[in-house]
């Protein structure tokens, strides 16, 4: 065993990259669930985003436009979910699961002619001064732009939910949609907005896998990341800052266990492989999970 081979700086740096897809997708789902809607279609929206990201970036030659296309793809898919669950009042769990299956198939179809296509390079930022800081510069300030977009979004969502009136209204809709409706808030409209924000975020998360981490299109390439994002929302108690912790913890232990394997740690590989899941659950449970939004997953109709 040679633990000295593990460079902690590089480990922390790759942690930020490995966590970004889950962070983005989970953040979107957090807002959706805070508005009282359970969308189990995260995986489907992620994979569609991954496919759309490849398509848009290869066609335009610009990675940022790829991400915009991915957000749009995820958003359109979530719009479908919103129409089905908010207007046609279908069951959210069943519709969400169907959305995942639909997304997997749709992305396979969309990506068919893009197999093996390589997206344009997505440059890492070189921030003057900050990137040159010893230690911290190497860990935190030499990543690509999406890593920071993810972090800024966490802050923005946190601020929105806890410090703004609009955020309060969104939470009210999620806690008790009948009361919010009685107060005159447009429950369905607010939920439409939240669902579409969630779809766009999931799309971005998927595109981060296909444009930055891999970078290539392969069918089913998100490989369950959407489900992990869903779980992290619950274990983070529907709180944005804990969600950041959860996502970084999961990404961190994932990267760490690969490093430990490579360093030849004398622990059976099976335990290392399950460690990211165990560690994330244990830590977030110890932090005491929050309470689910009161109207989560319930169908709302103004007449009831």
């Amino acid at each position, binding site marked *: *065993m040679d633990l000295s*081979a*593990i*460079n902690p700086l*590089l*480990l922390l740096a*790759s942690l930020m990259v*490995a966590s970004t*897809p889950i962070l983005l997708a989970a953040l979107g789902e957090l807002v959706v669930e805070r508005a009282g809607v359970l969308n189990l279609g995260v995986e489907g929206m992620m994979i569609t985003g991954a496919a759309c990201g490849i398509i848009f970036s290869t066609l335009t030659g610009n990675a940022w436009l790829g991400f915009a296309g991915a957000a749009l793809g995820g958003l359109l898919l979530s719009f479908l979910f919103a129409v089905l669950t908010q207007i046609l009042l279908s069951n959210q769990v069943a519709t969400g699961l169907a959305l995942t299956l639909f997304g997997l198939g749709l992305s*396979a179809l969309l990506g*068919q002619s893009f*197999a*093996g296509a*390589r997206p344009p390079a997505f440059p890492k930022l070189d921030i003057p001064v900050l990137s040159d800081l010893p230690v911290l510069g190497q860990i935190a300030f030499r990543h690509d732009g999406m890593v920071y977009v993810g972090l800024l979004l966490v802050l923005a969502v946190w601020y929105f939910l806890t410090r703004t009136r609009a955020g309060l209204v969104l939470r009210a809709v999620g806690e008790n949609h009948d009361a919010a409706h009685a107060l005159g808030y447009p429950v369905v409209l607010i939920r439409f907005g939240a669902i579409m924000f969630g779809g766009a975020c999931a799309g971005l998360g998927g595109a981060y*896998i296909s444009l930055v*981490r*891999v*970078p*290539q299109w*392969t*069918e*089913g*390439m*998100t*490989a369950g*990341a959407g489900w992990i994002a869903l779980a992290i929302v619950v274990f983070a108690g529907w709180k944005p800052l804990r969600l950041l912790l959860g996502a970084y913890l999961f990404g961190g232990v*994932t*990267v760490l266990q*690969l*490093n430990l*394997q*490579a*360093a*030849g740690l*004398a622990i*059976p*590989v*099976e335990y290392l*492989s399950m460690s990211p899941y165990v560690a994330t659950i244990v830590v977030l449970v110890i932090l005491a999970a929050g309470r689910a939004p009161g109207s989560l997953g319930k169908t709302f109709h103004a007449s009831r």
Partner: protein
Amino acid sequence: MKRRTLLKTGATAAFAAAIGAPLRAQDGPMKVGFVYVGPINDGGWTQHHHHSAMEMVEHFGDQIELVYQESVPEGPDAERVLTQMCLQGCSLIFTTSFGFMDPTVNVAAKFPDVMFEHATGYKTADNVSVYSARFYEGRAVQGKLAGHMTRSNRVGYIASVPIPEVVRGINAAFIHAREVNPDVEFKIIWIFEWLNPAKEADAAQALIEQGCDVVLQHTDSTAPHAAAQEAGDVYTFGQAADMAEFAPKPRISSIIDNWAPYYIDRVQAVMDGTWESVNTWQGIGDGMVGIGEISTAVPDDVKAEAEALRDSIAAGEYHPFTGPLNKQDGTQFLAEGEVADDGLLVGMNFYVEGIEGEVPS
């Protein structure tokens, strides 16, 4: 006509149609089924099986009809797919991943008239053959190249699922890397999947960060190549497919699976009625394992040495597992000059001496 007679006639006709359907299926082109574990455009394992299947279709033209199913999960779900193919009238079905072994054997017992061919497994039956390629021969060539090309003396290996085939590959590569470079060490990461681009990318990243400058993979996507390309001075090898889009660097060579001749053979055997359950295991010499062009990033003398190894394996003059070799714990595996027989190779579940870590059980 009385109403009752009409009903009777109708029922008879329907019955005849029902039993007639499978009989009629025998008249048309012969149906050949393929069950794939991944999508047919994965760039690696499944793509090459499909490519070989298409070559086979081209060879036979209208005589056969190809039925295939992509991305079938390994496990009980595969039985459903296989049963479906049997009911559709397939006469020969190829299942192309290790994890389809038990489903194949189970379904084969229910349909004794359908022939099955399972890739990389070891369970046979009267109507189940197994076939595989001696990938370890290609691994030996890769190991030799890796031993020469590494400057840090650290070689990374992204391993997939802990089955003998994968362990054999690691051992073959390691033995030949050590042969040319006594200081070389292997860092092995198991990801427990055949295809998961994000995980493969992370694994490659972790290996590169720990100083590996050659990365071998037994997983199916090109993600490790992309990671190596970004890192700069890291060499990789194509797996299952040539992956030439990453040549000449990072990809310096590859193992290419060529199943087409075997597929053509076996379909022909069913047509001729000469099909028998066999256990086929072919290597470089028979053309089932191809070594992709060694790229210009490799010095000429190293390239020549690797090609000489390839040719001597192909000619049957040299076996990659030739003693003296010890197991990891120091006990003897092969005595001086002894060559491993297929029985030993098929069940290989241990590392050879010098590799650190444990084989996951």
